[in-house]
């Protein structure tokens, strides 16, 4: 087990290195002349001024030196965004609460509703309810945030005045916070519920045919008891691991569209802004954050797995 974990962590570190290198090179290649100094200096700068800026920020050094320098800055917290003019880590610290609120709230919403809908579809499999739920889930996976979110903003927000038109309010005003998060949670959840509930429906139906379920029935357990204690417990495993990866990506700024549509000023929106500004340092930091959250949430999910499946605890 320990060897497995070390190997996984090592692969992850190597992957992080490769991702950061590719991102860095992409932007060096993309920048006009490969020189961010010209961009910082502005249109009216003389070549001498551009050169001065290049020397000051170290853009005149070889690419590998620049790369090492940038990565070192990211890890010791002194990374500075030349393009947007802020300390990257403290800016991400400001953006993180909105993203965490979105990820955790939406994550709970989409997990619980897909468990409910998936179980319902499995119990009613083949019947009318099941077919309606299948079509609804296909509709759900076809609703991108920039359509559903804008429709909500137009009709529920603007016309009915039931929700705000966007923005994030910090948790120090809990009622306002909840008020502002409802629509983003819903919008992000709809994307996932359709697929999750179908996976759950499939794995419940598979589990129903297993021997241990027949044994549980033979023991004289009631149908709800069999479902909750035996079937659901095993069927939840694939969903939980999927959920972990998805939540980790949302925390790492993966919900770019939802955050942009509702103007939450989260990490994802920052990532989109940084790409538009060719802000390599900020983008690199966010990519590192994504990878970090994938590792951390992955570890947490492994523990949860062990709670749900006793066989894993034993080995």
């Amino acid at each position, binding site marked *: 087990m320990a060897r497995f974990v070390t190997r996984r962590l090592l692969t992850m570190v190597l*992957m992080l290195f490769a991702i950061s290198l*590719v991102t860095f090179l992409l932007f060096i290649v*993309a920048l006009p002349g490969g020189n961010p100094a010209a961009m910082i200096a502005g249109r009216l700068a003389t070549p001498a001024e551009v050169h001065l800026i290049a020397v000051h920020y170290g853009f005149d050094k070889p690419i590998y030196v620049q790369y090492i320098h940038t990565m070192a800055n990211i890890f010791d917290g002194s990374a500075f965004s030349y393009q947007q003019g802020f300390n990257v880590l403290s800016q991400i610290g400001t953006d993180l609460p909105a993203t965490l609120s979105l990820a955790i709230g939406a994550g709970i919403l989409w997990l619980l509703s897909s468990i409910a809908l998936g179980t319902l579809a499995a119990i009613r499999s083949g019947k009318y309810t099941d077919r309606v739920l299948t079509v609804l889930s296909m509709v759900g996976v076809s609703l991108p945030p920039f*359509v559903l979110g804008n429709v909500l903003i137009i009709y529920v927000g603007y016309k009915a005045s039931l929700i705000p038109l966007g923005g994030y309010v910090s948790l120090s005003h809990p009622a306002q916070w909840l008020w502002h998060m409802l629509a983003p949670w819903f919008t992000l959840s709809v*994307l*996932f519920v359709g697929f999750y509930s179908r996976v759950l429906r499939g794995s419940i139906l598979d589990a129903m045919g297993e021997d241990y379920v027949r044994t549980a029935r033979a023991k004289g357990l009631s149908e709800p008891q069999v479902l909750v204690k035996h079937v659901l417990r095993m069927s939840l495993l694939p969903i939980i691991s999927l959920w972990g990866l998805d939540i980790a990506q949302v925390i790492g700024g993966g919900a*770019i569209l939802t955050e942009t549509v509702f103007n939450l000023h989260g990490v994802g929106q920052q990532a989109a802004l940084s790409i538009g500004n060719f802000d390599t340092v900020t983008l690199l930091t966010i*990519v590192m954050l994504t990878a970090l959250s994938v590792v951390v949430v992955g570890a947490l999910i492994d523990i949860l797995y062990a709670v749900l499946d006793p066989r894993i605890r034993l080995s």
Partner: protein
Amino acid sequence: MSFSGSELRAELAFAAQAAEGEEPASGPPGIGPYKLAWRRMRRNKVSLFFGVLFLLVVILCLLAPIYSQDVAHIGPNTGNLTGQIKVGGKLEYILSLQGIPIGPTWDIHHYFLGADSNGRDVAVRLLYGGRSSLYIGVVAMLITMVFGTILGIIAGYFRGWIDAIVSRMSDLVWSYPAVLLGITLGTVLNVRGLWIFHSTTLLTTALVVGFVYIPYVVRPIRAQVLTLREREFVDAARQQGLGSLRIMFGEVLPNVASTIIIFVPLMLANAILLEAALSFLGAGVQAPNSSWGTMIEAGLVDFPGAFHTVLAPGIMLVLAVMSVNIFGDGLRDALDPRSKAAI
């Protein structure tokens, strides 16, 4: 939609699992698996309906020039900032004095779905935008499927260092969230231009979208080929002295065909969605071209004065993607004999 990569990954894995169950032996003797699948498909009226609906959307968009020239008499980029049109007998400004565009007139000849903030006909632009969206979707899907299949078969067949390289490369691509990688590549290519094209074209976006999804197809195909290459028919072919190329594409490829068929609508839906997302964020289709994604983004300018500039392309996009998804779902059920047991 799978804006998070892990969901799409799992979705494809499930689809591949469904396809693997297919055996020629199932069903009455003398009927091939594809004929059987077609019989099952014919009974699934809902998914056939949505398949036809998607074809209808495609045909409508292909007819865009005809609608533009012979019915609406206005080009997709023709603005009219000061003009007036007759609506229900009285003259109205296309753009109100506050600059708010006129809403749907429901008159097939003039501004059927209203105007946008430049006084352009939304209905005409919708059809032209749809052409870009569908073109990019189809080209990106073809890129993904062709490269994904070839790489998957090669990696699974040769194993060893070739497999190691292909697998590590796909790990690298999919550890990035799909949208993040898409906008990074899209921005870079749109600024720099592709050296082959010298300028940004629709093909740039198609290449980005197609590239992002390649590893999602490589993995499941590779896994399937890994088990197929141990089967007797591959041994037999090798004994007969067939070369690796003949075995890979003559013997192995037909056996992963049903997986490929199932992936096509799935990848098409995802490609259309990713294109729209990139265009919405400004990293996809660039002016003067337009697509449903850029139209939604541009339409937000009119909010709260007018909504139709956001709703029209939004509804079209959802309609197209939803019909591909529901049709694809039916296709998967039809190709998977065990699906009957599950229902």
